Each structure stands twice: as C-alpha cells, then as structure tokens.
C-alpha cells in the first residue's frame, strides 16, 4: 500500500476545515468512509492521493430513521434496521458479503468508484497495456474499451443502493467549504466514469432524506450476477410503485444500475407505459423499451448483449408485484 497521511476529524466542521486547508495548500486528498472500495484501489495504486480524511469518528453522520439515512450508516445496520424501507433493505442485503457490509457505508456505496476490466487491475498489469484513460499516470492514455478517444470514461457504476434511492425520490445532502447544498439523487450523478458525480473538491455526502410518504411505496429490486454470495451487480433494476386499490399504479418509477457510468432513472419509458396501461403487456413493453435505452459496454464479467437481454427479464421480475393481485 502506498503511504498516505491519515486525518481523523471527530466532527463535520473539523473535517471540512481540514479539507479546506488541504485545498488551500494545493494538496490532493480522498475521503474514506468504510474503506472497502478505496483501500483495495489504493493497494493497486489506482489514483492514489497523499492525504486521506477518514470519516469514521464523525458520529453525527450515523443517524438513521425512516426518512433520514446518514452517510456513515453501515450497510449491515441498514439491512438489519426495522426502520429501513423493505426495498432498500433488500437491495442493501445483496451488496457484497456480510463482512464487506459490516464495514461499508451508505455514502461510500453511493459514491462508489466506477469499475472496468481495464482499470481495476494491478499496477504491472495496467503498465503492460500502457495505462488507460481513468488512471493514465500522466500519459493521457486512450480509453481501452472505446479506443481512439480519451475524453470519456465508460467504466461501469456498480452500486446497488442508488437505483432504489432514486426510485424512492431521495434527496442527497452535501456539505463542503462553500456551504451545504442538496439535490435530488438523480441529479447527483454525472455521465462520466471519472468524475462520476457533482461533488466538488472538499465536498462530501452528509446524509440522504426520503420523502415523508415513503412507506406508501412498494416495489422490488432485482440484481444480475454470477454468484449469489458476493458479486457486483452486472445489471440491477429497481421498481417502486404506488397503488390505490386499482389495477393501474398511480405512480411507477424504474431505475437501473450496473449498465452505464451512472445509475439511470427511466422516467420517459415509464411515462409512456403508464399512459397506455394494460397490465402485464405494458410491463413487457416497458421492459423492452428499457432494454433499448441502456448501453452497456464490454468491461465486466457478462457480455453487453447478455446484460441487455437480462435487463428486460429483471424489469419484468421487478414489476411482477404490480400485476400479482389482478388475475
């Protein structure tokens, strides 16, 4: 592991002042929460920074109730807690293994680094392919997935919580040297495998809030992976809906993850499906339109064509609860 200086602030203000100080001294740094994503990357010398600020001792980030999820809530606590929304708990339960969940946090999962076969490799391996765009070591190397360009990184965002939280209409709250701000989670992500999200230098995720009516939403989360025990999602589909005793859902939201550099909320496809609702058939149509709208690339275990086919199946399975009571 390359050496770095670890800062351990005990309050949010202290953490932000440390980050402010490091920025003013022009020093690069990373935040670390659970460390289950950052430290393996550091061991492989992936975009190592000389300073790391640990959030582990900040107790104000661990608050958890029905509508408030702190960034430092452990994934295992989220699964076990009785106040967690059932769909959210189901999605959190599929993340990695129990040991990783004990350490990994909600904020860390939301800000998970994007993954790629050409990026998540040892330093010697990456040197042998003359590096790649995401970790170019100053060589301005091309992207290895889509050759002859070094402007866009297409590494895949493989986190499970984001699509469910996006569907449930979560708001993400950030804090930084320039004050606090908040936005819907769907606006938090930016379509690039390197910047990934709108976090400015020195900013961190403090907590997520869910709308008050979150308990009225029902839904499901489906995940594609080779091994049930501990794999990143090759594709993930979250679907939540509100029903008022009618066959047609009053509201429906579907989001996917593990297919592109960001999780996607499919509002356009869902709206056209809801306008012309006819039960199981329109779910099939919705699944087909979502399959057409996603564009996975060849950088994970399963091939893009298989992942697209499976998105259709997963969407159908995730929406199965919608038509269950009808027939």
């Amino acid at each position, binding site marked *: 592991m390359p050496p770095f200086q670890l800062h351990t602030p005990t309050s949010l203000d202290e953490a932000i002042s440390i980050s402010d100080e490091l920025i003013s001294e022009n020093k690069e740094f990373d935040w670390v929460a659970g460390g289950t994503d950052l430290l393996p990357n550091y061991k492989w010398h992936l975009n190592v920074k000389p300073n790391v600020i640990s959030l582990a001792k900040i107790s104000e980030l661990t608050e958890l109730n029905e509508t408030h999820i702190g960034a430092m809530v452990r994934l295992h606590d989220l699964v076990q807690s009785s106040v967690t929304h059932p769909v959210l708990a189901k999605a959190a339960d599929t993340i990695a293994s129990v040991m990783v969940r004990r350490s990994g946090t909600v904020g860390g999962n939301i800000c998970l680094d994007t993954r790629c*076969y050409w990026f998540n490799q*040892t330093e010697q*391996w990456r040197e042998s392919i003359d590096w790649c765009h995401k970790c170019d070591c100053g060589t301005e190397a091309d992207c290895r997935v889509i050759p002859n360009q070094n402007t866009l990184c297409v590494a895949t965002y493989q986190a499970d919580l984001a699509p469910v939280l996006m569907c449930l209409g979560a708001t993400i709250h950030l804090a930084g040297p320039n004050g606090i701000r908040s936005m819907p989670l769907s606006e938090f992500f930016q379509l690039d495998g390197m910047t990934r999200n709108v976090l400015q230098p020195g900013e961190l995720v403090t907590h997520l809030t869910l709308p008050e009516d979150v308990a009225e939403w029902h839904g499901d989360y489906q995940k594609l992976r*080779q*091994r*049930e*025990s501990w794999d990143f999602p090759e594709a993930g589909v979250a679907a939540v809906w509100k029903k008022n005793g009618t066959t047609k859902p009053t509201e429906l939201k579907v989001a996917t993850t593990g297919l592109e550099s960001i999780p996607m909320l499919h509002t356009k496809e869902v709206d056209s499906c809801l306008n012309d609702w006819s039960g199981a058939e329109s779910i099939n149509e919705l699944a087909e339109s979502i399959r057409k709208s996603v564009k996975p690339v060849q950088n994970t*275990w*399963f091939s893009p064509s298989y992942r697209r086919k499976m998105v259709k199946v997963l969407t159908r399975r995730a929406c199965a609860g919608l038509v269950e009571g009808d027939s």
Partner: protein
Amino acid sequence: MGQVLSEEMKYGRSGHLMNPDLLDYKIPSVHEMPEVFPIIVESNDPEGPFGAKEAGEGPLLPILPAVCNAVYDAVGVRTAELPITPERLLRLIERKCKAEGVDNPIKLPSPRLEYSELQAVLSKRAEEHSKRDLERRLNDNRQPYYNGALFGLDPTIPPDEVDDKWAVNVIPSKEYLSNPRLAGSAWKHTERRHRSDS
C-alpha cells in the same frame, strides 16, 4: 463445480488476462456450493508409498459430465464448451429455439434419452463384467491381489509372514553404511516388496 459452472480465464483483445483476481475469476463460495458428502473407501494400494492412494483430481472428473447431463435433462441443450455460464446457456437455448423454429423456449420439446450405437457395446461389456465379478466373488481360491489392490491380508501381521511372495530386506545397503549421517538410521530401514514375477 466451479470448473463446470463459472471459472473461466477471459482474455482481452490484446491477449491480456482480464480477470487475474479472485473477484473476477468466479470461484464458487460456500454459499454456492452444495453440501459435499465424502465416502471413504479404505484400500492398500501396492503402488503408492505406504499403501497410499491418490486423491484430489480423481473425484473431480465425474462432476463435469454430471452437471452437463443435469443441464441437458433440464433444458435439453448439450454444451461443447465449459464453463456453462448463464450467458452461454442462454445462447445455446436461443440457437436451439431458432433451429426448432419456436419463439418461446418453454415450447421446446422435452429432452429424450436416445442411445447411441455405442450403447449396445457398452451394455454387452457390462454384462460380461458383472458375470466375471460374480465368478470372482464366488471363487474360493481368492488371490491376495484383487483388481490390483491388496485385500484379504490382516494389517496387524507383517505381510511376509502370511505370504511367501513378500521379500523382506532388513540388511542395510552399502550406501547407508558409507554415509555417516545415514548409518545411524540404517537398521530401521525395513523394506517389504511383493514379488509378482516369482
């Protein structure tokens, strides 16, 4: 199980191994593995050191055809390629659907057991073997060597006392005595070998 279901080395277009780590080289974990029941058959192998029999590679062999046959039994496709990942299996099913001209895999005809021409030879041989085995079982003059393995000897009695075909060598060789480091342990070295030639 891993070899037949998930473990695969993937190579990129530049010839690089794309999954050189244990996250992407999918070894089944405890969660994926079915329970394994070991059945211990004790034997005294004359070829192995101290009668030991090899282990490890041998038990692995029948699992691959067993899983492939189970897949065939369930969905009716034969694979010529391992591992049978979900992706590969879906491709095979789609190809089969196309060949059969059906749109829904559920409508595919159920797999049927059809014997090849070899089956007649095999069953004839099996019959011969079972006859031979029965004869051997009924034969009173049983040889100590039975299908290559040593049976019928009491392990508490040295074999040379039971069977005069066992040669015993307790005299240390010259190499032992010439090397002062080995001379001390020379007399402990007792060698028993079965003389099959005499």
